[in-house]
């Protein structure tokens, strides 16, 4: 198309479509760019290629049946989504979960965060042509995946948390496995830093690319590592602490430039902080129950159901009718790997959710994508996209 630029000069722009099935548009994202040579003049995005109707589907089941659906939001850190949803419902009940459950949730939360950040950084490297760091990051990730396998029976979509507890207690040798994974995580971090901190090619591709100011990021509703990379120390684990996060010794990581490099570096530094938290949590892990003992919230165990009349009734009722969440409207946000994962929950007091609205952290970040890439090179848009860590599963729901 032929256009006049703001100075009145004639330009011949080429519209170029990127995605939805492009190797660097992880998941399914599409954007249409107007190119002047190799420079992006304007860009518009389209999303929805992975829209499954999460919010419609969950209205048809019981409250417990929502949990496996939440796995499919951010599938890189599935357990985190489970926990965020269960926490929201538990807050509506106004119940406290047992101490061991809290500590276990902190451990799996932070391990998921490590996992998610590793995937993001590794994929960003891969998109920029670096395969070695990808392997460095995926080694510890594999160890955490093996822990998931032992703990939950699944690698990717685990469905580990339950409303009022966990699917099961940890297995024997869990602590040793986690410690081993933490050690290899730290080793991988050293290797990754060696690969990228002074790597001219990588720095040229990421420093100053896709910059966003703190004000703009806030106006776009950015949360999580991407916002922190712009220099805003905002983390729900510190701001609105839950699961005693405030009692652990760790720091909120912030960047300075708000560019692509900062977003990746913030993630790597956050992995370090997560390792710190997990190490402290392992020390706090004392024996005890993991589930709330209340058949109206948590399904009674098989043992109770087979030996005890009350347990059998409780199990039957909560499986067939679903638990009855108190009537009301509630918004609850938790700090997930990409930012604030929020659930607006409308309950009519019956066994089925009336309406659940997910606030995916990715959506706000992808909404600002055109501002990040306009004026840059087409190749830079790939670096920006992978630095944002857009997960189509939660973007499109």
């Amino acid at each position: 198309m032929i256009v006049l630029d703001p100075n009145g000069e004639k330009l011949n722009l080429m519209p170029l479509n990127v995605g939805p099935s492009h190797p660097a548009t992880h998941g399914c994202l599409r954007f249409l760019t107007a190119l002047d040579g190799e420079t992006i003049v304007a860009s518009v995005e389209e999303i929805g290629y992975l829209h499954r109707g999460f919010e419609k589907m969950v209205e048809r089941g019981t409250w417990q049946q929502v949990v496996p659906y939440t796995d499919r939001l951010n599938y890189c850190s599935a357990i985190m989504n489970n926990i965020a949803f269960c926490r929201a419902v538990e807050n509506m009940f106004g119940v406290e979960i047992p101490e061991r459950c809290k500590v276990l949730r902190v451990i799996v939360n932070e391990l998921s965060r490590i996992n998610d950040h590793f995937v993001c950084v590794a994929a960003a490297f891969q998109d920029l042509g670096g395969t070695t760091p990808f392997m460095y990051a995926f080694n510890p990730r594999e160890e955490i995946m093996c822990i998931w396998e032992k703990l939950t029976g699944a690698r990717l979509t685990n469905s580990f948390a339950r409303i009022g507890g966990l699917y099961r207690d940890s297995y024997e040798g869990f602590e040793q496995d986690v410690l081993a994974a933490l050690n290899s995580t730290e080793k991988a971090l050293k290797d990754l830093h060696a690969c990228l901190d002074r790597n001219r090619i990588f720095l040229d591709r990421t420093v100053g690319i896709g910059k966003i100011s703190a004000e703009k990021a806030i106006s776009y509703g950015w949360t999580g590592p991407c916002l922190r990379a712009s220099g805003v120390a905002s983390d729900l684990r510190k701001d609105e602490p839950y699961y005693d996060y405030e009692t652990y010794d760790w720091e909120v990581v912030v960047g300075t430039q708000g560019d692509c490099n900062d977003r990746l570096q913030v993630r790597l530094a956050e992995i370090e902080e997560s390792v710190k938290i997990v190490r402290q949590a392992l020390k706090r892990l004392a024996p005890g129950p993991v589930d709330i003992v209340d058949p109206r919230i948590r399904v009674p165990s098989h043992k109770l159901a087979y030996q005890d009349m009350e347990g059998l009734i409780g199990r039957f009722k909560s499986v067939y009718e679903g638990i009855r969440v108190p009537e009301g409207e509630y918004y609850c946000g938790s700090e997930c790997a990409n930012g604030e994962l929020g659930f607006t929950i409308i309950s009519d007091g019956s066994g089925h959710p009336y309406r659940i609205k997910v606030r995916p952290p990715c959506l706000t970040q992808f909404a600002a994508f055109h501002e990040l890439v306009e004026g840059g090179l087409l190749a830079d848009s790939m670096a920006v996209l992978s630095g944002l860590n857009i997960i189509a599963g939660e973007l499109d729901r």
Partner: protein
Amino acid sequence: MTVEEIFAALEGKFDVKREPLDKWGITAVVAAPYLHNAVQFLKEESGIKFDMLVDIAGIDYLTYPNHEGPRFAVSYAFKSMKNPGARIRLKVLVSEENLKVPTISDLYANANWYEREVYDQFGVIFEGHPDLRRLLNHVEFVGHPLRKDYPAQKRQWLSTNDYLLPELEKRLEELGYKVIQRSKEVETNDNEFLEGSIKE
């Protein structure tokens, strides 16, 4: 200043009501004509500056037990960056006959996509929105799927990609460019294209 005081100020200025269903936080029910001003007040003037729009959610009360009043609602969640932990929600009731709510996309950049999503899923029209298109559902999709009377099992035949070139031109104009010759692919009422390449 606490959120309670902000709510009291809102009550005095915009005649809002406390939503009794929100037992865990503060939700102010505001009439649609006051919405824009109320949001501006929350963002700029109130003691706690609610500078981040966290979420916009549509609600359809069609099958809600013993519900009285308008069928739809749009709920806005805000949080403050300067006062961590301060949150407030606003709610606008929307009747089926007059599905209109003023846009707040001029105040918050992310409201643009959130409002598009509510329009897409519930059919609520945001007056003054610069680009009210579907967000998650397909361009050829008919109906609004999150309404309670939309059957979950219903299937629709969708054939083609979203036609983004007109939006790209719009974006270029926003940036100060002037399109003098359109790309030859741009034919906004090209039936052949809209029907799609796959024929039933």
